[in-house]
């Protein structure tokens, strides 16, 4: 589950199954599948930054917000959806680079606080700069791009976008960049001694992760056709972080599975009414206690048990 080239067909197959199932389901389930695809794109971005490059970020929701507001604000002016998506991703990419600079000086908890500061500032901008963002009133009647106006058609757009992002992330991770990101996470001092430009790769890890947040936001806005600032506040950042960690941080399939848990589990538990969040929390805690490497870890162990053990390798004489 950790080798992108092995699990790519699995990821793309999962999207196809989700799409085919969605075509047969009710509008609310179609909405949930679309939401899963949108969140998975953002979680894939955060997984690049955190899981592969080892740089913690609590600001991923802000980048989703930049993408969502760029689309919501530009669409009424006749800007094509594809262009608003690129603009949203570009804004997030640039702000991601800016967020990466503190990571060159601070790490761990300190970096988490720096990214928390950006998340707070971004939320305040979304909420208080009403002349631009419409403040707490939000922006409504966000049109879906033609011909993806129906729920099912828009779901296919979200799944298609996720498929393209999946291929892009797969390509990135199998390229020398992916190896450099991993080196950055595992041992930056050794990485630098091997000629890996730790500074540039740190900034790229933040920027690419942020850009995928922007893409996710651009798709998010027309999905519900209404956005308001609280949707891009800290709870979403924590939720995206949860998707990466619960799925399996630093694994290719982790964000896909983590987003399923994050989107589907609350729905499954909704019948418990007031207790569902409590039960949801307990399930997540138990999962992380017994499988710190997430859902991917559970599946990988199950697969390993089914396979015959490999013969031990003798040391070189």
């Amino acid at each position: 589950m950790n080798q992108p080239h092995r699990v790519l067909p699995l990821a793309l197959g999962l999207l196809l199954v989700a799409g085919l199932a969605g075509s047969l389901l009710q509008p609310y389930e179609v909405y949930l599948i679309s939401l899963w695809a949108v969140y998975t794109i953002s979680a894939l971005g955060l997984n690049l930054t955190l899981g592969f490059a080892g740089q913690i970020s609590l600001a991923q929701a802000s980048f989703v917000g930049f993408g969502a507001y760029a689309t919501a604000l530009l669409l009424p002016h006749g800007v094509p959806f594809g262009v608003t998506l690129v603009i949203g991703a570009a804004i997030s990419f640039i702000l991601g680079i800016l967020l990466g600079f503190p990571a060159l000086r601070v790490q761990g908890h300190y970096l988490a606080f720096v990214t928390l500061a950006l998340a707070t500032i971004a939320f305040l901008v979304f909420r208080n700069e009403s002349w631009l963002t419409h403040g707490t009133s939000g922006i409504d009647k966000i049109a879906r791009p033609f011909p993806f106006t129906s729920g099912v058609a828009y779901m296919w757009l979200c799944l298609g976008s996720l498929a393209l992002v999946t291929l892009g992330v797969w390509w990135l991770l199998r390229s020398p960049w992916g190896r450099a990101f991993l080196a950055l996470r595992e041992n930056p001092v050794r990485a630098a001694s091997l000629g890996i430009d730790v500074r540039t790769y740190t900034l790229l890890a933040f920027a690419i992760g942020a850009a995928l947040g922007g893409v996710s936001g651009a798709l998010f806005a027309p999905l519900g056709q209404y956005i308001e600032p609280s949707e891009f506040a800290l709870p979403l950042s924590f939720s995206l972080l949860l998707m990466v960690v619960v799925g399996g941080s630093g694994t290719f399939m982790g964000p896909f599975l983590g987003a399923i848990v994050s989107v589907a589990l609350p729905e499954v538990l909704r019948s418990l009414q007031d207790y569902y969040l409590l039960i949801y929390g307990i399930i997540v805690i138990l999962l992380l206690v017994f499988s710190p490497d997430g859902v991917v870890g559970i599946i990988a162990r199950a697969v390993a048990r089914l396979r015959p053990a490999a013969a031990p390798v003798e040391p070189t004489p």
Partner: protein
Amino acid sequence: MSVVLEARDLHRHFGGVKAVNGVSFAVEEGEILGVIGPNGSGKSTLFNCLLGQIPPSAGQVLLDGQDVTGMKPLELNRRGVSRTFQLLQVFPQLSARENLILAGQEHIGSRMKRLFGKSDAGLTDAANHMLEQFKLSHVADLLAGGLSYGQQKLLDAAMAFMAGPRLVLLDEPAGGVNLSLLGSFRERLRAMNAQGGSTFVVIEHNMDFVMSLCTRVMCIAEGKVIANGKPDDVRNDPTVIEAYLGH
């Protein structure tokens, strides 16, 4: 022969402690210089000053005659300087082959070409050759973290040669390596030196290893060079015996 690395009156002080206290030496092209000295003599601090990990308090480091004092490890690597660390520094989640590809990839083409080019940056053959050189072919596809300590040590050393370096600084390469592996490890290092034409500086505590590998040995004690010459001359130098060998 031309001088590849030169230290001129190098100092590094930590408060009142003079870890490196006026060290001067030169290493000529193709040489294998061994650096020995008792614990706390300043060998690792000297290495760190040479390699830009910590800036020297005073003095100069010259690479091919050019002043590189305080230059960062990344920049030194780009100028053909490679190193290993005292403690193992392989990437456990990558296979042995991928560790080697990682060690060489940043020296192939531009960053954008690497993104859109081959996933191995065209280094699989070179990595396989290096695995063969270090007798690691049979573990090429295993995760480095799953290899034995000795195998990881060999891999760590092999990584230093992937970019075809001009100068390699090896910090205790024999440390923790099984005695049965030491002989062949030394021969592999010798072969790399002869074939690659690179220059080595080796810090080592294992006297037999360093005396049989190096063409010249320098002994440091209390931050100063107390002997510098042929291995047998240094081994028999009364100052060295008193300061380090203890017999």
